[in-house]
């Protein structure tokens, strides 16, 4: 089918999978925010998720598929794009493109690395800082997170990763609407702005957790 091969088809698939992941990012942020309520908040949230049983696995497999589709096509079209544009200009003048839009492939690669690390960290718990909590989850997610983020390096890496996510979505959210054709010349600038604001909200929202923990506000 053309959708899986053509220039536009693959972008559409990337847009859809990307946007589904953005929805996940929103839900995930809302879930994480329960940490602000205190230990009971996030622990209850985690237990509720675990009680869903097989549904969690359906969800995990779907997310894996989205990541794979998005990443494989992303790498494929990026290689094609650099072949299509093999010679560069002596003077690099940017008219509309920006750092975020130009580095989607690199922010994408970093995000994959982060996702692997993040899952190993908080889901598989194979890193030493959280290994001790292996038996307590989902009972004590709060303890795991606060302990882990009390480590400045881990918190720093996490915040940097959220910055990368922000950059990726800074361009990605409005790009989705354009690729789906769900915009007009009038709505495009508005969608762009909303997308950028949303990306920054993610950055602030996600980063606030480790920062609050480091600052000792959440303990």
């Amino acid at each position: 089918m053309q959708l899986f091969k053509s220039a536009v088809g693959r972008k559409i698939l990337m847009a859809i999978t990307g946007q589904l992941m953005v929805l996940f990012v929103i839900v995930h942020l809302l879930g994480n925010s329960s940490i602000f309520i205190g230990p009971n908040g996030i622990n209850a949230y985690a237990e509720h998720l675990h009680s869903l049983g097989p549904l969690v696995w359906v969800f995990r497999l779907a997310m894996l598929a989205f990541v794979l589709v998005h990443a494989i096509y992303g790498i494929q079209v990026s290689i094609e794009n650099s072949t299509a544009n093999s010679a560069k200009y002596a003077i690099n003048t940017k008219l509309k493109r920006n750092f975020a839009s130009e580095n989607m492939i690199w922010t994408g690669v970093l995000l994959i690395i982060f996702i692997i690390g993040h899952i190993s960290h908080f889901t598989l718990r194979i890193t030493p800082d959280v290994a001790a909590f292996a038996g307590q989850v989902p009972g004590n997610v709060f303890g795991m997170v606060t302990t882990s983020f009390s480590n400045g390096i881990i918190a720093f890496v996490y915040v940097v990763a959220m910055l990368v996510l922000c950059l990726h979505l800074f361009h990605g959210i409005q790009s989705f609407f354009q690729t789906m054709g769900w915009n007009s010349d009038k709505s495009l600038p508005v969608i762009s702005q909303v997308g950028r604001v949303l990306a920054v909200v993610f950055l602030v929202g996600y980063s606030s957790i480790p920062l609050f923990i480091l600052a000792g506000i959440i303990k």
Partner: protein
Amino acid sequence: MSDHKTMTLTLNVWRQKGPNDPGKFETYTAKGITEHHSFLEMIDVVNEDLIKSGKEPIVFDHDCREGICGMCSQVINGVPHGGQERTTVCQLHMRKFKDGDTIFIEPWRATAFPIIKDLVVDRSAYDTIIQAGGYTSCHTGGVPDGNALLIPKPDADYAMDAAECIGCGACAAACPNSSAMLFTSAKVAQLAALPQGKPEAAKRVTAMVDAMKECGFGNCSNHYECQAACPKGINVKFIAKLNREYLKAQFK
């Protein structure tokens, strides 16, 4: 008639003997340029000097010199057509530059636009894209009266906005991915907006998108660099329209 004030400029011009020559920048001085010179007339002046000194003039594409034929194609200081809004190189005037400026002049750079010589590139890929479906399959003669199908003014205006494309190649030259989506979408959108183009809309959009890829153009990643560089200001809303048409075509 000529102005008293003149400018002297330093030009770094891409010179390349042929498709296989690596090419390099050569530096020239343009003297006695007034603010009323067009950019190409400024190069004419340099070329006259080169010819007189027995050197080969800078080769560049140009024809109508009134901004409509789409032949002229130079990247000036990294921007196709020089960066004045809605302006081709031939309509760019030297009043946009200052005495003593250094200007870099390069050809379109995209794998699908191989360089022929100096600033001249081969843009036949754009013809190939149109040949893939950028038309209505009507026969000469045997068509209904022009008023037989009414076209509301907003639709006619929308089609005209898209049809303004001059096929110069600046969109692909400006695109970091060398994508020809703005060009392709302008034709797709024009014909999809008109009742005469609707019967073939699905076939057209898939064929033209495929032709674009086969020609070696990259994929659109929504930088919108194309619209900013387009001398006719073709809007990226036509790319969105192409995407819609493409999606629609998948369910036909």
